[in-house]
């Protein structure tokens, strides 16, 4: 390695290191608040006339005392465990329903030619542009007033699963298209029924795409908070995002609970994200090219 190359690498490491620090600083800060054991936004109390050193200490992402109290409290004292449970149920059922709806529809769009196929796919695309705010009032009327599904899991699950359909269908269809038709044709020769082909041949072959669909549906259910806050007005029915906002929104400022809760909520999504990011990106760009 030449000296000049070495020097560029050092410079690069410096720049990248500084930027990475900037990028993860807010995350370190949330960790600090979570482990501080207190509810305040500040890490240390500043003296009346703080010097630069005091201030430097106050921006350093390290708590004055390390404590797990916030985690314990948020799961036992506050109804957060309940909200987490609600979110888990909602996201889990959304995943199941979303994957089922998307796989069946995408398979039909990919393999069959039937009247309405083009129209259907175009409609799915256009529906992606419907602004959420236009749908909220009608959805509220349908789900809460007509179907009486306010404060229930079912109301949120069907809305989440259905709104995730267009993206999932387009992505899955792209993947199904790459599976050679010959496999199915030979299966038909061997006497396989359409259901066997779908469940035993196509779905296993499309595993990566199904995984992304599942992740996307799960994230929709796990992270959404606007519809959840409109549909769920009883505190026991809140989902985790609505609950987290409840900690620091309006006039309450329980930053410790918020931080601890945020970490608990983020862990599964971040883990899933890292596990599946490769697929997620290819799915997004594939959808982007066509969309």
């Amino acid at each position, binding site marked *: 390695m030449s000296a000049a190359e070495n020097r560029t*690498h050092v410079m690069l*490491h410096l720049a*990248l290191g500084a*930027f*990475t620090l900037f*990028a993860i600083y*807010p*995350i370190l800060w949330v960790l600090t608040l979570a482990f501080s054991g207190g509810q305040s936004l*500040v890490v240390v109390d500043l003296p009346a006339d703080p010097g*630069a050193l005091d*201030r430097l200490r*106050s*921006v350093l992402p390290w708590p004055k005392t390390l404590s797990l109290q916030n985690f314990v409290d948020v799961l036992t004292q506050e109804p957060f465990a309940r909200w987490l449970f609600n979110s888990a149920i909602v996201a889990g059922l959304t995943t199941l329903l979303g994957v*089922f*709806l*998307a796989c*069946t*529809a995408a398979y*039909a769009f990919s393999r*069959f030619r039937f*009247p309405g196929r083009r129209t*259907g796919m175009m*409609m799915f695309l256009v*529906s992606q*542009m*419907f*602004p*959420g*705010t*236009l*749908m*909220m*009032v*009608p959805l509220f009327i*349908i789900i809460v007033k007509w179907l009486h599904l306010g404060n229930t899991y079912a109301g949120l699950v*069907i809305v989440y*699963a*259905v709104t995730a*359909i267009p993206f999932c269908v387009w992505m899955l269809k792209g993947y199904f298209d790459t599976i050679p038709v010959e496999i199915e044709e030979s299966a038909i020769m061997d006497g396989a029924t359409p259901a066997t082909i779908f469940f035993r041949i196509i779905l296993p072959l499309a595993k990566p795409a199904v995984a992304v669909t599942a992740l996307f549906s799960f994230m929709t259910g*796990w992270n959404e*908070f*606007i519809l959840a806050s*409109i549909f769920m007005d009883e505190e026991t029915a809140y989902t985790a*995002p609505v609950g987290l*906002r409840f900690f*620091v929104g309006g006039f309450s400022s329980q*930053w410790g609970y918020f931080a601890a809760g*945020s970490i608990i*909520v*983020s862990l599964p*999504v*971040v883990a899933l994200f*890292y596990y599946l*990011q490769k697929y997620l*990106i290819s799915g*997004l*760009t594939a959808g*982007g*090219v066509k*969309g």
Partner: protein
Amino acid sequence: MTPRSLLAQPVALGLVLGALAAALLSEWFFMQARDELLADRQQRAVVMQAMALGDQVAAAEAGEASEAGVDRLAGVVQHWSQRFADIASIRIVRSADATLLASTDANDAGPFPRRLAREEKALYDLGQTLRANAETNAAEGVFRKKQLDVVRLDRTRLRVAAPYTVDGEVRGFAQVQQGVPAAPIRPDLGRAALVIGLPVVVFALAMMAWRRRGARAPPAVELGLAAVLLAGALYGQSTAGLRELADRHQAYAAELAQTYNAIRQAFDATASLTGAVAGGDNRWDVDEYLRPLGVIGGDGSLQRAALDATLDIRENHLRRSLWSAAVLGAGLLAFIGLGYGRRLRQTLVEHRIAYGYVTPAIAGMLVLVFFPFVYGVTLSFTDTTLFNENLSLRELWIGLKNYAVILGDFHVVRGTDGDWVVNYQNFYWTLFITVMWTVCNVAIGVSVGLVLALALNTKGLRFSNVYRVLLILPWAIPNYITALTWRGMFHKQYGVINQMIQIFGGEPVSWFDTAFTSFLTGIVTNGWLSFPFMMVITLGGLQSIPQSAYEAAYVEGATRWQQFRHITLPYLKPTLIPAIIISVVWTFNMFNIIYLVSGGEPAGSNEILITQAYKIAFEKYQYGYAAAYSVVIFMLLLVYGVFQNRVTRATEAIA
């Protein structure tokens, strides 16, 4: 003519199916209406009890010797539960100081009054909620929050809590749990069978008569006859059903008037204990916002005009539903009668496997995406708000007025020369902010992402995987958490960012107080959130560039910049352009960041279109106006979509 040969005729089949659908749907609507009527009757009976008791408590509390008055409450409650056998329990709670004044609930241990126990916190919370709701409504001058707590324990048991007010302040509540009479409500299937059977039989007879004369009726006559028969049957059904509803309405009102009289007697009998005065009006028969209904007068007489008005509202509501059922029936008749049914059936049978697969998804999309969309667009032509929701859309129809107000108001800047203010609520201002917001964010995302990707792609750079994993984190974390975190960091007094500024001797900035700094908070947060996506996309694109291209350039003596300009960028284009297109749409609609970080502060100057539409709908409750606003957003995105399609086609053609 056998039934089989009759059903082979499209018109007859259409008549059967149309009548079946319309008649059953109408019966279902009738059943719903009866159910609602019964629920209303049950609720009002208990509400009157709770309200009357509330008046007693208020009088007892307000009396001179208030503690003695409170003691006498036990007598009132006793008297009440002896007189009304269907009352299961009564609780009087003064939530202002968390005291249970009286209770006949078997689970509540005496003696009363006593402080609420820890596990009875729900009662205290209920009192606080009722007080907060009353104050909210009074402060806003509207009826938005419910001021009564009505809980349906099951079909025949209700629990109602009514607040009592002393010196203009909600001090606590009276809670009554009561059994309410309920006969099971079933659809009138006999009537439905008649509505379906009669036109079909008449139609069949007419057809037979025609055939006996040796000719077939012309199709137009057949269809016309079927339509007339269907309309007649449905008209009969709706007249009968509406009359029954009116009778029930009248009967329930009479029953409620009796209940009122009984409560009034109980009230007068116990008034001496607390010094309460009933007054001339009926203040106990109220809706959930404590507004007197005025149907039953103070002396227990029925007020004809008010009674008819409440019936009118119910009837109009029901009529609209009945019309939709009739339209459905007529539509089915026309569709099948004109022969489309057969063709549709053939197509469905031919492609049954494909349709089987798509049906679940399509059905869901129709109900929860396309129907809401159509409904929303319809709303945009009305001036529906939270407060006139019960009126029909036809009465609220205002045509294009919402659009004219949104798009036709060009007064972005007000005031005379030198001294002007921006009208932040103006659509064009919000559009300007939205465009600025989108352009800035996408520019930051792309440039930061590109630079980072190039840096990480440097050959032989160690730890590049570590950097990559850490730099993706902002994307992996749910964005509402990010937004709330940054909101905390921008806090004026305690936020970390101001602390940093002070390290370098600067003054703390109140970030959300001026339009520019508030805009910056959004940009920083969203920039932080969106660069990883672009970085990852670019890294993927960089990997597809063949090394030989650079080697050739090196041999030709190209500079670093020339390599970047003529090799890297052109190769990246097919990956970058779709990513940019998609992130433009994402940023344009990035609700969470604006809503959670700055909330559009100050004075709505930083709203983007989507958050503005949300606020109009859910903070100002102007549903119609918000819908029109959203339709405008949709149109902008649609135009962008068409434009984007052209661009991608063009780039594909070049590539």
